[in-house]
């Protein structure tokens, strides 16, 4: 072997410039790759150059470029992403449209012609506008291939209007929907936004922290971890700087509340994050928003700009010693980045793979520093708690879990959408009181509760209470009778979405849709999830196409067990939740599909 003569070549100036523009560190990787992708210039050569410009090994940037679904090494035209999530699937099935993703893509392709590249996308977070698509950056829905001509002309479907509360709603975080102009800070100030921050700044951070702690606010991402306790961990870390990260990577099918909250009232979120920063002793925050929410990301950036102009963000806020900066960081298509450690990895410019835990983010988070990662909705609740007091928040309900929650109800109900209410609801109340009852001709068959990784609930459990699986906080419970009544049967709240399915929906096909999502979104790090989701999908594909074999159900159970027991992170551990519940309650349907 002879050595090839190696000639030093400077980094491609265009890429060098891009890298410099986005900060020149590893954290810029995703942005540089996206910019190159937008120019159709993503290939091994440019990816290697990006690595050189950012002083990284080439496999890091290549690993990124092939990890995120919004990046592609293939040449693309205008991109139309068709939502392939279970809610859009259900809607298409109900409307007698094609549900097969390949078929759907080719229908769109034939209607739109060669100007477009059509891609499937895991849930776009537009469940209330199903069936949805993303036209370049623009969210559209409900649309189907027959609307292609209108879509080309700029038609983007119908926005959902949540300005009028439903009967029985208790609105806190959603109170200003339709009242406040999301793009005008003056309008926000008129409605009392930033009052919470102003109040917080007048007291000591420890006081603010104690207030949030005693409110009993539990994280709204799904796990229900006490927000105050998490902040306490961060605030008690001696190392600085500490960081706040807002998880706006809302990629779970059925969930769109964060999108609505950011869209309708961005300042509420910014205020909540700033208060968190004040309480935790942080001076910088990142909002990690999924790449598909470009519209919301721009709105947030505009809001940040306006807030900075009014000195509600930035240096020495309102003359105090507190300075705070909020950045918006866009993802690029990966459900796993909603897992907090994967999100941090992604924020650091790496593949969105979960980290080993412990250490947890409050001790070792973004850039290895103490970091509080909270969901959009959690932050949105904070200004109200600070402004009105913890006592007020607890008194919003006589349920042991304090405060209100933004719920979503979808599927075969008359009035699907989003509403805010206290805890302690049952599925029956959600369907009848808030969802307007089942559609005419529909009878309740089952519901997927929480989110895609939630429980599948049969008719027998419609009166069970819904709460965080971790239960209400100790010391917050005031009425022991509630406890006795409630904890006999509890459905996990998850992120608070409920997909109601009628008799026309086969639980087998439905589970297939869920596994279709999880198999596409598994990061691949650990064996049980990587192979388990794929194999489960393979079995379900067979079962739903009339090719079921004896033993399929048994194998699904085995796969569910191993994924739950042995997976690395919450994704793999929670895929079995819908699997196990549907297999328990609808065993007969699966037995039928075996033959």
């Amino acid at each position, binding site marked *: 072997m002879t050595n090839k003569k190696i000639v030093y070549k400077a980094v491609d100036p265009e890429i060098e410039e891009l890298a410099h523009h986005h900060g020149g560190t590893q954290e810029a990787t995703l942005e540089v790759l996206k910019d190159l992708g937008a120019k159709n210039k993503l290939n091994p050569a440019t990816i290697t150059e990006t690595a050189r410009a950012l002083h990284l090994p080439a496999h890091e940037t290549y690993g990124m470029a092939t990890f995120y679904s919004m990046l592609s090494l293939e040449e693309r035209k205008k991109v139309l992403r068709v939502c392939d999530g279970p809610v859009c699937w259900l809607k298409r099935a109900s409307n007698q449209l094609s549900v097969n993703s390949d078929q759907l893509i080719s229908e769109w392709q034939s209607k739109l012609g060669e100007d477009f590249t059509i891609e499937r996308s895991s849930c776009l977070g537009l469940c209330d506008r199903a069936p949805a698509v993303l036209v370049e950056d623009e969210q559209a829905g409900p649309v189907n291939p027959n609307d292609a001509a209108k879509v080309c002309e700029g038609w983007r479907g119908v926005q959902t209007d949540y300005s009028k509360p439903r009967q029985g709603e208790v609105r806190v975080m959603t109170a200003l929907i339709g009242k406040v102009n999301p793009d005008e800070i003056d309008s926000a100030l008129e409605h009392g936004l930033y009052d919470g921050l102003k109040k917080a700044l007048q007291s000591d951070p420890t006081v603010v922290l104690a207030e949030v702690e005693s409110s009993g606010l539990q994280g709204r991402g799904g796990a229900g971890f006490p927000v105050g306790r998490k902040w306490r961990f961060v605030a008690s870390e001696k190392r600085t700087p500490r960081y706040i990260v807002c998880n706006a990577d809302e990629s779970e099918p059925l969930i769109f509340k964060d999108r609505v909250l950011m869209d309708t009232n961005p300042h509420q979120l910014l205020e909540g994050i700033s208060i968190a920063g004040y309480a935790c002793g942080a001076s910088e925050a990142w909002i990690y928003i999924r790449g598909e929410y470009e519209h919301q990301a721009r709105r947030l950036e505009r809001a940040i700009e306006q807030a900075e102009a009014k000195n509600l963000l930035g240096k020495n806020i309102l003359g105090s010693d507190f300075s705070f900066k909020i950045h918006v960081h866009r993802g690029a298509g990966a459900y796993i980045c909603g897992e907090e450690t994967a999100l941090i990895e992604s924020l650091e410019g790496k*593949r969105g793979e979960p980290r080993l835990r412990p250490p947890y983010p409050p001790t070792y988070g973004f850039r290895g520093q103490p970091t509080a990662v909270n969901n959009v909705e959690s932050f949105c609740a904070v200004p109200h708690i600070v402004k009105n007091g913890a006592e007020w928040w607890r008194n919003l309900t006589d349920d042991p879990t304090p405060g209100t929650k933004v719920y979503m109800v979808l599927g075969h109900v008359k009035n699907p959408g989003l509403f805010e209410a206290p805890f302690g609801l049952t599925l029956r109340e959600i369907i009848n009181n808030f969802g307007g009852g089942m559609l005419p001709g529909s009878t309740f068959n089952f519901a997927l509760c929480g989110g895609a990784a939630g429980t599948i609930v049969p008719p027998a459990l419609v009166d069970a209470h819904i709460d965080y699986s971790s239960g209400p906080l100790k010391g917050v419970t005031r009425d022991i009778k509630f406890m006795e009544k409630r904890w006999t049967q509890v459905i996990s709240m998850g992120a608070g979405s409920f997909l109601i399915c009628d008799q026309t929906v086969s639980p087998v096909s439905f589970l297939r849709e869920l596994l279709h999502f999880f198999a596409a979104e598994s990061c691949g790090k*650990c*064996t049980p999830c990587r192979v388990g989701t794929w194999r489960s999908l393979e079995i379900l594909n067979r079962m739903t196409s009339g090719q079921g074999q004896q033993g399929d159900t048994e194998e699904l159970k085995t796969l569910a067990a191993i994924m739950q027991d042995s997976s690395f992170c919450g994704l793999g551990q929670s895929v079995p939740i819908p699997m196990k519940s549907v297999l328990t309650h609808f065993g007969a349907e699966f037995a039928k599909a075996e033959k």
Partner: protein
Amino acid sequence: MVNITINGQSIQVEAGKTILQAAQAQGIEIPTLCYHKDLNPTGNCRMCIVEVKGGRFLQAACVTPVWEGMDIQTHSEKVTKDRKLTLELMLANHPQDCITCDVSGECELQDLAYEYKASAPKWGSKGGRYPVDSDPNPFIRVDMNRCILCRRCVSACAEIQVRDVWGVAKRGFDEVIVPGAGTTMLEARCESCGQCVAYCPTGALSNKMNYGIARAHQVTKVTTTCSYCGVGCQFDLLKKNDKVIGAQSNPNAPVNGMALCVKGRYGYDYIHHPERLKKPRVRRYLLEGKDKNDIRDSIHDTRNSTSKIESPWDWVEAEWDVALDITAKKLMQIRDQFGADSMGFLTSAKCTNEENYLMNKLARQVVGTNNIDHCARL
């Protein structure tokens, strides 16, 4: 120190140790695949899962630190069942060609499958997803069909060799290990040290030079010290039928552990090379006792030709004593004629400390000059 219980046995363990380390100290074996003591643990493969009392999920022993009062079961029914299943998930897409595979007999996947009686399920691709021998690297044979995505190659390249050639691309079931930006290994700055091969638990990465020549049980291992430089790396030469057919890391090597450079790992083919010099060679005129001046005008100067005619300039094989005598005589001659300081001694990093010391003695005491230096000082 924290108090923990492993398989019913109460022990004290230093705080911060992992379950795996605690178990190993007790002589309890927990199976591992992606874990290697030299590399940062990643917890990917899920083979080392154990049951911790009160825990919702099984814990990976390689990455979970012990805590006070932890009650661990390393081989409960649930654990062994899950391990077997995890192996089956790996085997489903792993070629069923152990019978012809080069690393059969030293494959960790094979050993664990044997231990847990795991066989490949009926489903799965059984390989065929990637081209076989897919990289043109002259030393390393790549067959990603056999890869179980443990990422030990990625860690070895990044942490030991610090070349960062291997990385992880794509995601989910499509996840694959690639060099650089999906290029060839050499394009991704590979220096062919073969660390990735040494750490690969399966046959995904193997050696090209001896591929198909011998398997683990057919070779005798001879531990030796590398002769290329003075670092003193040790490794095992693999011997089959009295021939050296390869070199392999020896994890007990005191200086280098598993690490070797391209020369140590792959530069062994000189051993049986037909052109290898085994004895010293001396110019014919010196053997004949002549002086260079006597033959200066020799018409048969074949130094730069391929002539077969005998010439006084020819290199002739000689015994060590003969060659050394001539060398000694010449050196003394120079010293006597021009003085000791007319000579300089340069030793080599390829020599051991002892050899270098002797060279120093030769220069200062025998010849009598302080003109001695060492190539590593340059």
